[in-house]
Structure formats: structure tokens, C-alpha cells
């Protein structure tokens, strides 16, 4: 426990005066945050323990909304799926950007071209990406992938209507869109690695594999750690991909927790229950982040 010394009144005033300019600079941002983020956030927490008409809280009901959403038929499938999304996104999407970045970094020619190329999918608007992949995954003979398969004599497959593979397919879509921008972050990280390390390694006769393993990866560790937790947070809130591509189907095989929030809020206009699920998602994320940081700290020590 760290205790701060009680500041002298005069010193506090002086400090306040000194910081006034900074506060003024921050003020517009703070106001916007307060209005668009913090107030709705608190309101959602409040609504989650109230019975509501529309977004008007009517009666305090304690944890009833939580009980009701947890007992609801779609809650556990959505929780399980959210973790399955997470797992697949880490399997498919976590190492790929790093590999792309290292590949580009190590390539001798055309760095600029590759850099642009990996980033391109990211400039496609989110929904357009989803519709594009929805077309590729279409299950009739005219879907993009099925046409390719048809050319080699394989009958059409139901990519998104197969409960066993629907989530990995959606994760492929998300990775296609997101990997490029993450790769650029890694690339920036790589550029920060001192070239002398590589020079020394080359002089010592290290090959590419050894250089990557002993220099690049350790140097990227901190960045990767941050991006890991950001990815967990982002994937935990996956919504529009399953919403548009499968509507959570078949038979709840791809429904995510945020989609459950969407259904309560926009299909049923039940904002209390929607808020309750949101709060559950937030608590889950806080817990995950906490555990992760704890584990990491121990490692560092």
C-alpha cells in the first residue's frame, strides 16, 4: 500500500494552476466521453437491476434480470460460442499477423507493396467484408468457394450451415479483415528493433530461423502481449459477423453473447435484460484481463 503525502494547500493550488491548461485541453474530450461513454455505461448498469419500459427504469428488481437471462434458452450456447470464437480467433488470428509482419520485414524486395497488400482488406467497410464472405461461403453451386470446388468435381458444401465449422469460417472472415492492420503494428514494432542485434547475429552465423526465434520474437513480446489482450476483448464482443452471416444459426451454433444483447434490445425492446447480458460480458472481460495481467506480472518477476 502506497500512501501519498498530504499536499500543502498552497502547493496544491499552484499545481492546480499549473495544470489548468492541460485540463482545458482535455475538457472537450472528457465531456464527450462523459456524455457518450460513461453516462450510458452507468445507465446500463442501473437498467440491468430495474424493470423497464423502453429505456425508462420503472421498478427496482435486484438480480431478477440476471436470473432470467441466465435461465434463458440462448444464454449458455452464446457463452460457449463466445469462448469458441475466442479459441479459433487465437488459433487462426493471433500468430498470422506476426508471421505476416516478420515475413514482410525479412523480405528483401517489394516491402512497400506487401505492406499495402496486407492492409488493403482493412479499408473495405466491415459490412461489405461480411457480405463478400457470405457470398464466398454461399451453399449453392454459385457460391464462390463452391464454384472453385465444382471446377474440381466436388459437390457444393454448406459452409455456414454446418454447425461444426460455422464459427471457424466466421473467424476466417474476421481474420481476413483484421490481420493486416495488426501486422502493421508488429511491423512498426520490428522497425524499433535495433539493427545491431541482427548484425551481430549474422556475424555469429545465425540463420533466419535463429534470428526470428532469438531476436525478433523476444523483442516483440511486450507488443504481442498487449495485442493479445486487445484481441480477446475485441473477439469477445463479436456481433455483426454472425448477425449478418448466419443470424446466430444453425440452431444457435454461432450465436455470440453480444448478439444475445442485440436480440434483447432490438428484437424484444427489452433493455433491462439487454443491459444485464452486457454487464455479464463486461464482468467476464474484466475478469479475463485481470487474470491475464496477474499471470503476466508473475512471469516478469
Amino acid at each position: 500500500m502506497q500512501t501519498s503525502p498530504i499536499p500543502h494547500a498552497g502547493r496544491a493550488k499552484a499545481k492546480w494552476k499549473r495544470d489548468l491548461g492541460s485540463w482545458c485541453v482535455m475538457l472537450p474530450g472528457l465531456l464527450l466521453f462523459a456524455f457518450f461513454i460513461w453516462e450510458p455505461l452507468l445507465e446500463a448498469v442501473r437498467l440491468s437491476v430495474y424493470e423497464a419500459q423502453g429505456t425508462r427504469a420503472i421498478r427496482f428488481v435486484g438480480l431478477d434480470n440476471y436470473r432470467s437471462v441466465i435461465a434463458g434458452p440462448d444464454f449458455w450456447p452464446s457463452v460457449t460460442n463466445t469462448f469458441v470464437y475466442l479459441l479459433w480467433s487465437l488459433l487462426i488470428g493471433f500468430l498470422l499477423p506476426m508471421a505476416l509482419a516478420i515475413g514482410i520485414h525479412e523480405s528483401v524486395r517489394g516491402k512497400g507493396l506487401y505492406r499495402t497488400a496486407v492492409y488493403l482488406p482493412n479499408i473495405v467497410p466491415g459490412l461489405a467484408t461480411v457480405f463478400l464472405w457470405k457470398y464466398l461461403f454461399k451453399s449453392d453451386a454459385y457460391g464462390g468457394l463452391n464454384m472453385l470446388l465444382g471446377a474440381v468435381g466436388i459437390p457444393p458444401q454448406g459452409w455456414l450451415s454446418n454447425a461444426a465449422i460455422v464459427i471457424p469460417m466466421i473467424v476466417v472472415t474476421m481474420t481476413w479483415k483484421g490481420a493486416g492492420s495488426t501486422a502493421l503494428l508488429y511491423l512498426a514494432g520490428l522497425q524499433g528493433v535495433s539493427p545491431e542485434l541482427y548484425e551481430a547475429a549474422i556475424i555469429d552465423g545465425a540463420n533466419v530461423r535463429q534470428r526470428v526465434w532469438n531476436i525478433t520474437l523476444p523483442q516483440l513480446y511486450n507488443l504481442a502481449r498487449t495485442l493479445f489482450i486487445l484481441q480477446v476483448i475485441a473477439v469477445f464482443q463479436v456481433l455483426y459477423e454472425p448477425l449478418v452471416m448466419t443470424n446466430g444459426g444453425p440452431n444457435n451454433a454461432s450465436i455470440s453473447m453480444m448478439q444475445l444483447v442485440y436480440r434483447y434490445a432490438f428484437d424484444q425492446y427489452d433493455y433491462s435484460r439487454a443491459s444485464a447480458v452486457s454487464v455479464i460480458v463486461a464482468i467476464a472481460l474484466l475478469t479475463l484481463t485481470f487474470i491475464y495481467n496477474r499471470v503476466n506480472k508473475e512471469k516478469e518477476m
Partner: protein
Amino acid sequence: MKKLVSVLLTLCLCLAAFGALAETTLKLGVYPEEVATDAIASHETYIEKYSAQYPDVTVERAHYKYSTDTFVPMAEAGTVPTVFESWFTEPKKLIGGQFIADITDELEARGWLSKMNPSIRTLMSDENGRVYGVPRDAYALGLMLNAELFEDAGLVDENGIPLYPKTWEELAETAKTIKDATGSAGLCLLAKDNAGGWHFSNIAWAFGATLENQDADGKWIANLNSAEAVAAMQYVKDLKWKYDVLTADPTSEDWGTGFTQLGTGAAAMYIAANDAVNMPTQQNGLAVDKLMMCGIPAGPGGQYSLMGGTPYFFAANATPDEINAALDYLVIMGKAPELTDDAIEGLRVDAKNRKENGIPNIVEFPAWSDPELVAKRQEIISEYSNVDARMFQPYFDAVATEGNLRMEEPQNAQEMYAELTKVLQAVVTDENADVQALMDTASANLQQILDEQVNK
């Protein structure tokens, strides 16, 4: 000087306030969107008449297309137009959230309450019998057929009228014949969202199922796993795996894509209602004389058609004057149970518009049980007829049969549809799906919802 200015200002404010009080503003959410130029032309005619008749009402063209992601914020901010069109799925939650106005007294004063088709009235009322909406029109589900595909498959009688299926068994056979002959799907089954369950309840009824029951104590019991309902679901499963007559991926089909499949000839049959005949034709290019409608096929348990109504609702913050102004506008549109000259003209404008746009002019389903009005509508529609009556006769015969029309299951219909849709998704994507087990789960889930929300 300062005083004078403030006095003047106050005066101005008072005058403005009085001006606002004296005038009623009618915000017309039913005004069409910008691109619908012919519909705009019709509404401009209505507004012209309206303004002549009610000069102290200011009409505001406030087109609003109801959608679930915009409605609640607008309602909470009080900016919902005075009158707007919504969907048949919405009344319960809109009434529950107090988003729309109780118009019982206004309707009572006009004597419209008793003229409203009783089933439709129930649909737009809360549990105390207060009424919140006016039906734009009523509908009953039937089967729409793409006559071109029937012709290509040779399934027409000596007059060239398609040989439509009368039972679900016949439908499977017909669908198979069409698929084999043309390569197009026989039936477009919906399994993407709640519309799947909505359609399925018709099949279940035909197989003899009742999906919800009330026990002796008045408690509602989910009954999705009865032998009849399971047989109906097994039938759907067979359509996919035994007959293979569905479109490639039913889990991607919703209400709108169904009409695209039907209208563009990718599917030959589709469960749809009479109020949506513009969808395959005008919207998706099917020639007006190539659309046929027959009743929902019969099954071992009989033949039933789900009936409902598409509502007009009124903003929760609308004053009685504004509500009355909106109701007056509906009279001019010909959507109210009053046969004024303007109303007749309104009907005529509408019928002419439909004819010019290649939309079948068929009799509407009476949302108002006023014989005079029904007769007049019939007369105007035959005046602008653009279809062969024989193409729609089987549909009208079916729904005119005593006991054919059925309202949706009474409690938590949307949640029930959601549960059924999940089962539909499972049986059309998994050849080894266990129908009984899936229906058991669906029924248990629905029971839980009923216990929590109804049986408390």
C-alpha cells in the same frame, strides 16, 4: 426602452404559442419514401384533399419506415410521427413499452370499434381490451406459385392453370417433379429468423398440432413436442433429405429472399400472404399473370391459414386532436371503414397505381367487417382488374372455408417462432438430427419463457 422590448417579446411569444395551440400538426409517417414516386403522387392527391377539408391542420411529410433499430430512440425522444405503419409482429412489445397511443376512445367515438374484424382487433389490443392500432389491411397466409415453373414442368390443366398441390404430401411430389424438370427448387422454406417458425406453425396445424394449450388452472402449456408437431417437423426434414426440393440453404432465407426466389424462378412455391403480391411481381420481376395463389395445403389434421393484420400505430405523445387528424387522413386514403367520396377515390387511385406497376389487383382481406365497404372495394378492384381470377380463386376458396382461418398462437408467439426456427435450422442442416429430441428441447424452452412471463 428595455421594458418595451421585453413586453413586445412576451407578446410575440404568446401569439406564437396561441398559433401553435390553434393548429394541429399531423406528422405523416405513412408518407412514402423519396424513391417511390408513384406512391408520392397518390399521397399528394390525398394531402390536397385533406388540406381543403381540414384547413387548420398542418400536414408534415414525415416519412418513417419502421425499423427496430431506430424506433426506440425516436420514441424515447418523442419524435415518432403521429401515424406510422408497422409490422404484424410488433403490437405486443410496442404496447408493453408504452410506445404507442391508446386510441380506443377516438375509435369508439367514430363507431369504428364495432366494425373492426374481431380477430384483428384482438391482435391490436392489450390484455384489458384497449385498442392501439388500426389495420392497414388484413392478411391470411396461402401458397404463392410461380406459374412459369409449373408450365415448364408440365404441371398445368387444359386451361393452362397450374395444378396446385392440395395436401402437403402432394406438395412434396409436385416440388420433386418441378425440381427434376427445371432444376429450380420446389419450395422456398424459411429458416433464417422467426419467419421460419411463423410459416411452420401452418404446417404444424395441418398435421393436427396445437402448439400452446391452457390447462384447467389457466396455466399456459407449451406443446411443441406433440406427436403431430413432431410429424410436421419430420415432414420438413424429409423435404430436405428425402425429396431434396428446398433452396440450397434455407437457413439464409427470410421473408424477403423468399419472394426473390419465387419471383426470379429459383423456387416454384412459397408460403405468403395476399397483401404481399407486389413482392414477387413488382419487386422481383415476375410477370403479373404468372403469379398464382392457392390455400395452404391440407394435412392429416385439416387445413388452416394463419391470419393477421398489418397495423397503423400512433405516437404515444400524440394528442387526441392529432390522433383524430391522422384517422381523418386514413379515411381519405380509403383505409378506414367509411365510404365517403374521397375514400372511394382513394381506393381508385390505389387500384390504378397497382395496375400501372404490374401488381396483381386482388381483393383485400377484410380488416373491417363492413359489408358495404367490402362490396365497394370488390367493385373498384374488378374495374382495374389485371389478373385471371382463376389464378387466385383456390386461395380465396380456401380462406372462405368455415374454420380455416386461425390466429397466431396466443402467448409469446415470437419466442415460440424463435424456438421453432432453431429446430428448423437443425433439421435442414443435419441429416441425422433427432427431431423428437429437438422438439422436446424447444418445448421445454418455450415452457420456461411462458412460466416466467405468463404463468406468474
